[in-house]
């Protein structure tokens, strides 16, 4: 090998190019290669998989991949904003659109794909978008924002194509406030990944998000409105959809144009033909990623592209790696709709058996595909609850332990998440091709002691993130096995877990932060931080219910608890008065409405049957609350890690089917537990019969009436990882029910980790759900009397935090907007009108003062 580095040129600066350069720089220790990346997009490679998150206000930087140092490496040249226009295989040169000609020793084509634009008349109208690059998404978002500013009704959008990408785009449009319709050619959504049964349910879940779905039809024409912009879709079945914006998501076409023109072979449906070493017929030219056609197909996923990049690098350095075969498992990235498909999802293997669990009422469809002896897992489809995905996918091709149907049970049952029994060679993270063995070795051989370190060391979980729960489990198991004490410490100031600290404080009786830190903190404890301070505040509140703003404790609270309101994105706050059980008098409604009107607040009904008033400035909070308190309302604690709401249906007093008075119970429970501080927010629900209209089983504590009393469910959580509550006890009379809930709540408050919701707490607490049942119903630990006393004390000392604050001039001082101008409004707040109310102005709107309204500032007349 000569001392001069050889020239490697990569055409295309996408995800696969990035991985290729990264792998090359990691492995080419002697600097044999200098690599030049020609990128048509005006920026360094970014995370296209996470493109949709760009909608939620993230800046382009947050999509960056890997370390930025890569592009400063002297062995790497990144040419941005330059497309390659011609390739000369004989001369071994590439020309770019500025006329520069570069020679190469080796060349990699990593040009990816372009969105396919179907041959529909009108597909080129303004307002029709594709969805592939940051620029595409920025243009789409700009268009929607502009249209919505000019319309006095919601923007109407359509997505043509109901696959993974189409649904993701529909979700993004919906998030921008657009009324969206998805038009799908085939019989059901995501037809490339899931079967008809799953497709039916998926359609219902998507519809529930407010997105309309049309299947079995094509778009025959896109018509313009009178301004020449997109205006209407005409469908082959005669239907018409009025639209202000259209996204095309009908598939991708490999960008093989350079290769074609240079005379390289392309596949039947496009793509540069390569062998298992990712090499074209020309021994100096490789192709990797979506543009490569291997065994007659191009793969539109990032994981196979990464695998190809690694193969090419290995070959460049003299190795003999071959493409290992593609893992085409996929998971839909649309919040609120859980869909996954993996392995042989359509049961195409001869003799394959399908095991289906379908519960349309609960909104789940799960199918496992098994070998003919029903032992080996071949693939599966999960719709509505894909929590088993991370655990099942690595088991493809392996025998499942125990009864396969156990894997179809609801999330939370132990079988749904294997971890310990996973073989070392099972792939845990398919995006980065990391096996269970590699994760374990990161702990045993490389000294990683937490998930973050393992992620950095192995790259597992750093792309789509769906395997993180499994990685976490593996790491935890491995640390335990290695005898390493898993540090449950809160932060650098406190080496105890929340539960340990709770016990310590309870026993020592210390009641101030400085005392507690001196006694239970680490050597550097001193001042604490944003992690341990709120934990201590919460523990102290649970133990003696002092006012949240009392003396030194005020400094421990985060801003929500500090000013007893919810911080919103522009720095204003929202206010939620308590409405126990969701029952409110007409006079109460009028009073709330009048306050909203007088202070110009945006009003919205919450999921927990409350009224949320947005846009209150810090200095307005006491005035607003004075009015609410006078009208008989008290704090709704929407800001706290505490009891939020008890939601109820109307129950037997009005409902034809009701068997118990759900509202009366809900009001009683809410008044009992109001103000209870906890490791995370707590929600309760009460339904008057088994029809469950209050969705109580989605709550931490759910109560459902029976002919003989109440069924009690616990551990239901919405949010990021939704879980259904599980049955704790049946047919309780009202007094036993209340006592059982008392004990359950105090036991949880005392023993859960920081920010641990009830569902994971039940999974991890000693004995699981059975253990909790033994403690609260059979007093197996002998602490029931203590738990009862703690709740009795909570009920006794409860006082309304807002009323107490209004009575205290010292506390009121923290509501000054500026210490030197206590009643001056934050001059940076700006609002626009929308559907008859205010909302914070977007950055673009701020630049144009013509659209701004005074919002919550001028409307006050007191």
């Amino acid at each position, binding site marked *: 090998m000569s001392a001069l580095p050889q020239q490697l040129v990569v055409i295309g600066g996408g995800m696969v190019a990035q991985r290729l350069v990264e792998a090359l720089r990691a492995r080419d220790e002697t600097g044999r290669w200098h690599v030049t990346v020609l990128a048509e997009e005006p920026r360094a490679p970014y995370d296209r998989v996470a493109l949709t998150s760009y909608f939620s206000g993230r800046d382009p930087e*947050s999509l960056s991949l890997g370390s930025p140092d890569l592009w400063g490496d002297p062995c790497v040249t990144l040419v941005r904003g330059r497309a390659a226009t011609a390739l000369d295989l004989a001369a071994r040169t590439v020309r770019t659109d500025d006329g520069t000609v570069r020679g190469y020793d080796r060349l990699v084509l990593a040009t990816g794909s372009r969105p396919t634009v179907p041959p529909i008349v009108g597909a080129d109208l303004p307002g029709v978008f594709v969805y592939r690059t940051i620029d595409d998404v920025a243009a789409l978002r700009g268009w929607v924002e502009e249209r919505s500013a000019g319309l006095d009704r919601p923007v109407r959008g359509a997505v043509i194509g109901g696959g993974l990408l189409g649904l993701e785009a529909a979700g993004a449009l919906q998030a921008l406030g657009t009324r969206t319709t998805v038009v799908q050619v085939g019989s059901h959504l995501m037809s490339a990944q899931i079967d008809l049964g799953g497709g039916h349910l998926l359609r219902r879940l998507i519809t529930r998000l407010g997105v309309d779905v049309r299947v079995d039809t094509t778009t025959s024409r896109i018509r313009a409105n009178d301004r020449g912009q997109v205006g209407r879709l005409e469908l082959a079945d005669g239907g018409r959809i009025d639209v202000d914006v259209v996204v095309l998501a009908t598939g991708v076409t490999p960008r093989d144009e350079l290769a074609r023109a240079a005379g390289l072979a392309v596949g039947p449906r496009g793509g540069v033909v390569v062998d298992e070493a990712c090499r074209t017929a020309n021994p100096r030219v490789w192709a990797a990623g979506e543009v490569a056609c291997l065994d007659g197909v191009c793969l539109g996923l990032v994981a196979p592209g990464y695998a190809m990049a690694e193969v090419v690098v290995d070959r460049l350095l003299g190795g003999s790696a071959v493409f290992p075969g593609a893992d085409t498992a996929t998971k839909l990235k649309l919040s609120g709709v859980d869909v996954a498909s993996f392995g042989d999802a359509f049961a195409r293997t001869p003799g394959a058996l399908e095991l289906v669990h379908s519960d349309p009422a609960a909104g789940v469809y799960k199918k496992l595909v098994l070998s003919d002896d029903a032992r080996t897992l071949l693939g599966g489809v999960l719709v509505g609850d894909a929590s088993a995905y991370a655990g099942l996918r690595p088991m493809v091709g392996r025998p499942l332990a125990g009864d396969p149907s156990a894997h179809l049970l609801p999330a939370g049952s132990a079988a749904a998440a294997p971890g310990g029994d996973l073989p070392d060679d099972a792939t845990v993270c398919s995006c980065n091709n990391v096996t269970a063995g590699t994760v374990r070795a990161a702990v045993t051989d490389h000294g990683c002691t937490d998930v973050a370190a393992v992620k950095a060391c192995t790259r597992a979980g750093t792309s789509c993130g769906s395997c993180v729960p499994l990685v976490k489990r593996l790491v935890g198991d491995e640390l335990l096995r290695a005898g390493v004490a898993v540090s449950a410490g809160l932060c650098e100031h406190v080496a105890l877990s929340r539960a340990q600290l709770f016990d310590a404080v309870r026993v020592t009786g210390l009641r101030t932060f400085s005392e507690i830190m001196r006694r239970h903190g680490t050597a550097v404890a001193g001042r604490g931080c944003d992690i341990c301070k709120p934990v201590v505040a919460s523990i102290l509140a649970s133990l003696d219910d002092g006012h949240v703003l009392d003396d030194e404790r005020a*400094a421990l609270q*985060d801003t929500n608890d500090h000013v007893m309101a919810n911080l919103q994105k522009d*720095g204003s706050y929202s206010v939620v008065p308590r409405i126990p059980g969701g029952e409110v008098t007409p006079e109460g409604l009028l009073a709330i409405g009048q306050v909203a009107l007088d202070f110009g607040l945006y009003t919205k009904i919450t999921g927990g049957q409350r009224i949320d008033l947005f846009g209150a400035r810090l200095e307005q909070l006491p005035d607003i609350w004075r009015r609410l308190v006078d009208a008989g309302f008290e704090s709704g604690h929407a800001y706290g890690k505490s009891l939020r709401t008890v939601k109820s249906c109307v129950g037997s007093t009005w409902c034809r089917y009701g068997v118990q008075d759900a509202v009366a119970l809900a009001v009683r429970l809410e008044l009992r537990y109001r103000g209870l501080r906890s490791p995370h927010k707590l929600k309760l629900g009460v339904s008057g019969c088994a029809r469950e209209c209050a969705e109580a089983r989605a709550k931490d504590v759910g109560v459902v009436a029976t002919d003989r009393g109440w069924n009690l469910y616990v551990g239901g959580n919405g949010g990021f990882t939704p879980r259904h509550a599980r049955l704790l006890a049946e047919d309780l009379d009202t007094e036993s029910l209340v006592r059982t809930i008392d004990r359950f709540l105090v036991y949880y408050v005392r023993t859960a980790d920081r920010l641990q919701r009830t569902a994971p707490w039940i999974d991890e607490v000693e004995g699981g759900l059975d253990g909790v049942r033994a403690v609260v119903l059979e007093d197996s630990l002998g602490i029931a009397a203590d738990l009862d006393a703690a709740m009795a004390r909570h009920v006794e000392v409860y006082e309304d935090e807002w009323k107490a604050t209004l009575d205290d001039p010292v506390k009121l001082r923290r509501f000054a907007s500026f210490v030197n101008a206590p009643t001056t409004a934050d001059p940076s707040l700006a609002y626009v009108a929308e559907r008859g109310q205010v909302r914070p102005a977007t950055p673009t709107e701020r630049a144009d003062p013509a659209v701004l309204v005074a919002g919550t500032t001028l409307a006050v007349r007191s």
Partner: protein
Amino acid sequence: MTGAQVRWHEVCGLDDLVLERGAAALVDGEQIALFRVGEREVLAVQQLDPYSGAQVISRGIVGSRAGAVTVASPMYKQVFDLRTGRCLDALGREPQDLRTWSVRVEGDIVMVAAEGLVAPGETGAGGAAGPVDAVGAAAP
């Protein structure tokens, strides 16, 4: 600081500030976050949270990280060094620093330097020009 004459603005009384907690102030039309981190020690940084674009830094929780006095933004929880303005934990985003102001406590009056602004880019990442001392660093 490059010799510019420093003008000191009286902002508030020391007693107006609560220990270990921030407060916002308007100085020359600019929003500044003041933090009383010791009996007579006050630090000042910009009120604008670079990650959310909202004027909220004063409402974050004061703490410490490996010896540095910090504030965590109440919005997305990035952590900043209150003395230098440096972003110590960007939570996966690009680090963006805060501007700092010199503060002087005279008697029970808290004063902020109207000049004496140190943009983080100018001090360099390592704070080559030195962080602004909390008390009287830029006294004329």
